[in-house]
């Protein structure tokens, strides 16, 4: 059976949607030469009307995509660096995402914002290592964060077919992940459906994005001590609260492993909702970036600000030991 990498899954999902639906097109910087490999082979296959190389005009081309979407197309914008999503935050959250409501339901804006390199790049400096998915969830923009090639394929497909704006975060640290798949099994995955990667009974670890793989490793390490369930929401907005509640109902304990900044990050939202609505037998914990984390330009400083496996293992042990509220 073929081995599919995360990056190749994105290339395949986008190509499949472009084959299936003429209205889909991709625009972005360096897409002709497929700098990120997402659009590898596309210029030849689809031509310059569907593979649109754009200048460094992010605010302009993000609004351009909104316009094209209003006029019936399904643009997919590829962004090179996470901070570019901050540069176009207004265009996504205020122009595109509010338009359906503002037009009284007359016209939706089906744009996909594809960020295939989200998160920390060792040594690339403070301006290149953001992980802003929580911000989009906060603003009510549909936002997905798949961890595996199959999920990346399924959620990119869904994002493109969805009639609303959807931000797709592909964690940089997951791009190399490979999975043995049957191509015929690749299929759309609904927004807001979580996934149990590893069943367990003692504690639920909610892991997001590339941290899913690290959480699975920690769960294995702790296998002699505890039965750890690893649960991945896959999309952060909408969020599969029902799926989380089911997991927590089984385990009663919760640790969140989240690459967001701590204050007002997804981890905070997950703990708050669980505390309000679910039956937790012990106080939950989260392992995140620090508050307002910016990372520097030195690998050893940067890594000190990333959530680590060791922190997760310790948090899991603390939650397991806790005798209650």
């Amino acid at each position, binding site marked *: 059976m073929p081995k599919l990498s995360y990056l190749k899954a994105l290339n395949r999902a986008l190509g499949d949607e472009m084959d299936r639906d003429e209205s889909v097109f991709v625009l972005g910087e360096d897409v002709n030469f497929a700098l990120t490999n997402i659009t590898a082979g596309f210029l030849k296959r689809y031509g310059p009307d569907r593979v649109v190389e754009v200048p*460094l005009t992010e605010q302009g081309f993000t609004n351009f995509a909104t316009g094209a979407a209003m006029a019936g197309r399904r643009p997919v914008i590829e962004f090179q660096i996470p901070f570019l999503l901050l540069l176009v935050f207004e265009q996504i959250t205020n122009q595109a995402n509010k338009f359906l409501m503002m037009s009284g339901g007359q016209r939706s804006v089906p744009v996909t914002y594809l960020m295939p390199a989200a998160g920390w790049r*060792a040594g*690339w*400096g403070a301006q*290149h290592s953001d992980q802003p998915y929580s911000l989009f969830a906060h603003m009510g923009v549909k936002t997905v964060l798949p961890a595996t090639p199959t999920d990346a394929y399924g959620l990119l497909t869904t994002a493109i077919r969805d009639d609303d704006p959807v931000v797709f975060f592909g964690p940089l640290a997951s791009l190399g992940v490979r999975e043995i798949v049957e191509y015929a099994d690749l299929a759309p995955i609904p927004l807001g459906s979580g996934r149990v990667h590893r069943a367990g009974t003692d504690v639920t670890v909610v892991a997001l994005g590339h941290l899913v793989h690290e959480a699975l490793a920690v769960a294995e390490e702790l296998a002699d001590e505890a039965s750890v369930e690893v649960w991945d929401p896959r999309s952060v907005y909408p969020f599969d609260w029902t799926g989380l509640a089911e997991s927590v109902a089984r385990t009663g304990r919760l640790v969140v492993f989240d690459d967001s900044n701590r204050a007002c990050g997804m981890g905070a939202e997950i703990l708050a909702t669980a505390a309000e609505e679910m039956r937790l037998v012990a106080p939950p914990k989260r392992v995140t970036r620090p508050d307002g984390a910016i990372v520097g330009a*030195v690998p050893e400083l940067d890594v000190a600000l990333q959530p680590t496996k060791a922190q997760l293992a310790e948090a899991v042990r603390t939650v397991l030991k806790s005798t209650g509220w």
Partner: protein
Amino acid sequence: MPEGVVAPVKVAEGLEVAGITAVPTSVTVPVAVADSVELYRTMRFIRRFEERAIDLVRAGEIFSGIHPCIGQEAVAAGACAALDPGDIVLSSHRGHGHLLAKGTDPSRLMAEMAGRVTGIDKGRGGSFHPSDFTAGVYNSTGTVGHGAGIAAGIAWAAAKAGDPKVVLSFFGDGAVTQGALLEGFNLAALWRLPVVYVCENNRYATTLPVEAAVAGTITGRGEAFGIPSSVVDGQDAEVVHAAVAEAVERARRGGGPSLLEMRTYRYHGHHTFEMLVRLRYREQAEIDSWKERDPLDIQATRVAEADRARIDAQVELELDEVVRFAVDSPRPDPADATDHYHADGFRPRPGVSL
């Protein structure tokens, strides 16, 4: 009130803007004269500095890789030589040459790129975002085109504080399609701020050729705001110097901003990752034809051979020391990772409470 700064401009009856107007033309500021030998030295230093930096990228000492400015040395050297030490430079992701030409300590710049505590930003800026206030380099933004407005703000504040400085803002051809750059132009022109905008048109933004990106012209963007704008041979350091000196003189006189489009070329890939991934977005013949007008070769013809030999040898000795300093300097302590987050020393909570 210092020369060059007068009362705010009245743009309409009753409406004042925070402007700086031209002083009477009787005030003259001498245009600097190029020092051919010094220009050669600076360019030679930049080129060899970048080559040594590439060695350190290969050796894993500069973890981020770099955006080499090899081929564009004449712009950095010629432009910065036209500034006073107190003037300000804003750089870009391809900024090592700018910093060196403005007078940054090369050892501390290399240490910065290698992420050492002795670096000009204690390893927090790295190769991509270095700043060095001791040399008047305020910023190298990673957000292409977003230095233009920052430059205007610095120039405005300095003039208002009675200590006018010329601010020289470097950016690439990729920046001229960015709205924020044009917004910066507008403010600088509206308020006649002493800014020199230097566009290094090296023909590509990563893989994108300038023809596929820019409608109209680069200089036309300046002209639209009433900014004197011209195209300059960016391979000849003395031509660059003369053009920038004229713009600097205009700025000091209160004549407002200028835009200079330097036609130049980068010999290497966009970033050193192109040593690993071969991207065929430009023809070898094009690269070769630019190398025929190599900025160092052009400047070398103006320097006696004996002087050149002496300079070249001296540059090698200095760079040995630069590299030694960078590599031997200590790496930062991860315990200090949240130093400098806030001006009052306030520290963020860690990502986990245990």
